[in-house]
C-alpha cells in the first residue's frame, strides 16, 4: 500500500493530471447544473443554469419569468446575490486546479488520492448545499401568496425529474458538472493504472 502511495506516477499520467487542471479551468466558463421547467404555456421551455459564481436563466429572460411564475406561490425571488456560496465557489475550484498543478510538479500517487478526496468531499458538500437551497426555496413560502395549496412544497429534485402542479422540473449536471465528474474519473483511472503497473512489475 505504502509503495503505491509514494509511487511517482508515470510521465503519461503526469500529463493527464496537467490536463485535468487545464480542463477544470473551463468550469469557470460553463454552467455546472441545469434545471429545466416544462409547462403547457411554455412550449419553448424555461430553464435555470447554475454557474460557479452565478445563477442565470437558460435564455436572457428565463430567470425573470421563473420568478414571475414563482410569485404566485410566494417563493422568494431567485437571484445570485442571495446565495453567498457563489462568492467563494470560484476559490474552491481554484484550489482544485492549484492541486492539479502541484501534483504535476510533485507527481506522487498520494497527491492524486488527495485530489480525489477533495473533489468527492467538495462535491458532497456542494450537492448538500444545493439541496438545502432548493429545500428553502421550495418550503419557505410567503403565507400571503395568492396561490396557497395546502401541504404543497415546490422543492425541485436534486437529480432527475419531478412534477409540481402543472410544471415538470428536471435537474441535471450541465457541461461544467460533467467536466467535474470526468475529472474525477480520470483521477481514479490514474490510480488504477498506477496500481496495475505495480502489479505487473511485481
Amino acid at each position, binding site marked *: 500500500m505504502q509503495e503505491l502511495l509514494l509511487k511517482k506516477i508515470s510521465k503519461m499520467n503526469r500529463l493527464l493530471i496537467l490536463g485535468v487542471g487545464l480542463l477544470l479551468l473551463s468550469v469557470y466558463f460553463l454552467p455546472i447544473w441545469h434545471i429545466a421547467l416544462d409547462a403547457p404555456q411554455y412550449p*419553448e421551455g424555461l430553464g435555470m443554469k447554475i454557474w460557479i459564481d452565478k445563477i442565470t436563466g437558460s435564455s*436572457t*429572460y428565463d430567470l*425573470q*419569468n421563473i420568478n*414571475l411564475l414563482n*410569485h*404566485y406561490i410566494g417563493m422568494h425571488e431567485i437571484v445570485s446575490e442571495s446565495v453567498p456560496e457563489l462568492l467563494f465557489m470560484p476559490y474552491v475550484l481554484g484550489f482544485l486546479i492549484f492541486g492539479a498543478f502541484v501534483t504535476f510538479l510533485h507527481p506522487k500517487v498520494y497527491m492524486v488520492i488527495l485530489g480525489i478526496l477533495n473533489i468527492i468531499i467538495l462535491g458532497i458538500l456542494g450537492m448538500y448545499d444545493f439541496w438545502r437551497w432548493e429545500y428553502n426555496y421550495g418550503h419557505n413560502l410567503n403565507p400571503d401568496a*395568492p*396561490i396557497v395549496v395546502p401541504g404543497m412544497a415546490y422543492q425541485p429534485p436534486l437529480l432527475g425529474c419531478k412534477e409540481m402542479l402543472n410544471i415538470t422540473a428536471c435537474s441535471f449536471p450541465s457541461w461544467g458538472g460533467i467536466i467535474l465528474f470526468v475529472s474525477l474519473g480520470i483521477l481514479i483511472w490514474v490510480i488504477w493504472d498506477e496500481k496495475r503497473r505495480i502489479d505487473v512489475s511485481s
Partner: protein
Amino acid sequence: MILIGLGYGCKGGAATAALASDAAKRVYVAPGEKDEVYAFLSGGFSGQMSVYGIPSTRLFKIIPVFSVFPENGYGYDEETKNMLRTTNGYVPWDDSHHIEASMTDGKQDGRWLFMNANNSPRLARIDLRSFETKEIIEIPNSAGNHASPFATENTEYLMAATRFSVPIPQASVPIENFSKGDFKGTVSMVKVDPKSGRLSIELQILVPGFDYDLSHCGKGKSHDWCFFTSYNSEQAYKMIEVGASKNDKDYILAFNWVRAKQCLDQGKASNFGGEYYRNYLPENQPAISEKLSGVKMLQPKDCPGVMYYMPTPKSPHGTDVDPTGEYIVGGGKLATVIPVHSFSKLMDVKDKPEHRSGMIMDIPILKYESTLAGEVKKPCLGPLHTEFDGKGYAYTSCFVSSEVVKWELGTWEVEQHLPAYYSVGHLSIVGGSSKDPYGKYLIALNKITKDRYLPVGMELPQSAQLYDISGGKAELLSDFPTVGEPHYSQMIPAKLLMDKAAKIYPLEENKHPYAIKNEKDARVVREGNTVRVYMTQIRSHFKPDTIEVRSGDTVFFHVTNLEQDFDIPHGFAVGGAPEMPNLLIMPGQTRTFKWKAPKPGIYPFYCTDFCSALHQEMQQYIRVLP
C-alpha cells in the same frame, strides 16, 4: 343502359368526393403544425393589412396601418396618433390597395412590406420583425395614390403615381379645363434607405393629366424601368364611365427611373411646392411627425428619354412584368385580348421616329405593333392582373367573366380557365411579382361572395380563393372570407420570416422618455393641471395602484409593461374614458393613455388582455377629487 348510367353516376360522385377530401388534406394544417406561407392582404376600405396562413387560410393578425384600431389603441395614444397626421390634419381612415414586399436582387428579402393609401395620398412601411407600421409618408402634389407602392429590383425606390389628375399645384379652376390640359398627374420616386428603410421623396415627374392606375417595375435587363398603366387618355371629366371608354387604346407609360435620377443629378429638376408629412415610429418612442415642404419636380421635356407611351387596349388596369424582365403584360379592363409588350422591342424602337405616332407633353407615343410581343386572343372578359409561376406560365384575373386564366408565355396560348367566386380583382402567387416565384399557391382576391357562406344580412364578407398551381393543372383548394376587401396581396414563404419575428421589446433598449424600468420608480407627478402617472404593469398588478387626481386635470398614464416574456402584453383601460379606447402594451413597451379627469368620483382602471391566473385582480382605482 340504366345500370350503366347508374354506374357512371356513382363513379362521378365518388371521384368528386375523393377530390374534395384530397383538397381538404392539402389545406389541413394539424394542431401545432405551422403554415407554409404568410399571406399579407390589404384590407381595401378597412385601411388595414391582415396576415393569413397558407394553405390553412387561418387569420393570424390585423396590422393597423392607415385606420385607427380601437382594439389596441393605434392612432389614439400619444405614441401612435402622429402616425395618421397629414397636411389635411389627422386623417383616421384610408383606403389601402397594394402591398409590395421589399426585394434584394428582385427576390423577396423579408425586411419590409409597403402599402399605399389611395384617399389621402400616403405610403406606409411595415416592419416584418414586429409586424407593425413604422412609417407613413404623405405624397405631395398627388390626388389618389393608386399606382403605388411598386418597388424597383433592389427596393431602391417605390413608385407612386396619381390616380385622380388635378391642377398641380392645386387651384380652383373650372372642371372643364380638365380636357384643356390644366390637370396633371405626377410620378413620385420615394427613396428607401437600404439600411433603415426610412422613406423620403426624392423626385417627382409631372405627367399628362390621365388617370394613372397601376405600376410594376422591371427586373434583370429592364431593371432601369417602371411601367404605369393609364386610363382616361380621353381626359373626360363628366360621365367618365362613358367618356373614358372611347379610345380603342390607352397607354402604358414606360418610365426610365435611372435616367430620371441622372437628370435630377444634372440639375434638370426644379424646386416645386408641395407640403407633406412624414411620420416615423422609432422603436418604443413616440412617433416623430415632421412637416416637410417642397420637392424636386422634373418635366419630361427637360429629360429626353425618360418616358415613352406604349398604346395598350383598352383602359388598361394591371401592368405586370414577368420574372425574366422581358414581357410587360397589360390588363385591358375592356379589351378582348391580353396584350404583351416586349422590353427588347421597346429598347429597339423607342428612339426611331418611324415607330412613333405622336407626342404628349414631349413624351413620345410609340406604335402599338412596334413594341408588341404577342396577344393572348379571347382569353376572357375583363382581364385585369397577371402574376407568374416562374415555370413559363402566366395567370390573369378576369373580373367580368369571373375567372383566372392560365396561359403560356411565348406561345400566348390559353391553357386553363379557373372559375372564381366571384368577380376577381387582383390575384397573387407566392413571390409571383418577383424575379423568383415560389409558384405553389395562387389566391384570387374576390369582390363579391353571394352564396359562398351563410348569409349575414346584406353586407357579406369579401373572399379569397386558394388554388394549388404546383401541378400541370391548377386546382381550387378552398375559399375563405377576408377582413375588408382583399385588394392585393404579397405572399412570402414562412421560412423567410418566422424565425426573425420579434418576441419582446427588450426593456433595456426602451428609450421612451416616460418609461420606467422598475416598480420602485412608479410615481405620480403633478405639473400644474397636468398629472403624469409613471406606471408599471407586471402579472398581476399595476404600480402605483391607487391614484388621486382633481376634476379637470389632464392625466397622462405612461404605462410600461415590465414583462419580458413572449406573448404577454397587458391591456390598459379606464372606466368610461370617452376619448381613448383600449391600449395593448407589448412586453417591454411604454404607451400613454391620455385622460381628462371627469367629475369627482371613483373610477376603476384595469388590464384588458387576459394575462394571468390573477388577471381579474389586475384592477385598481383612481379617485377624482373636486
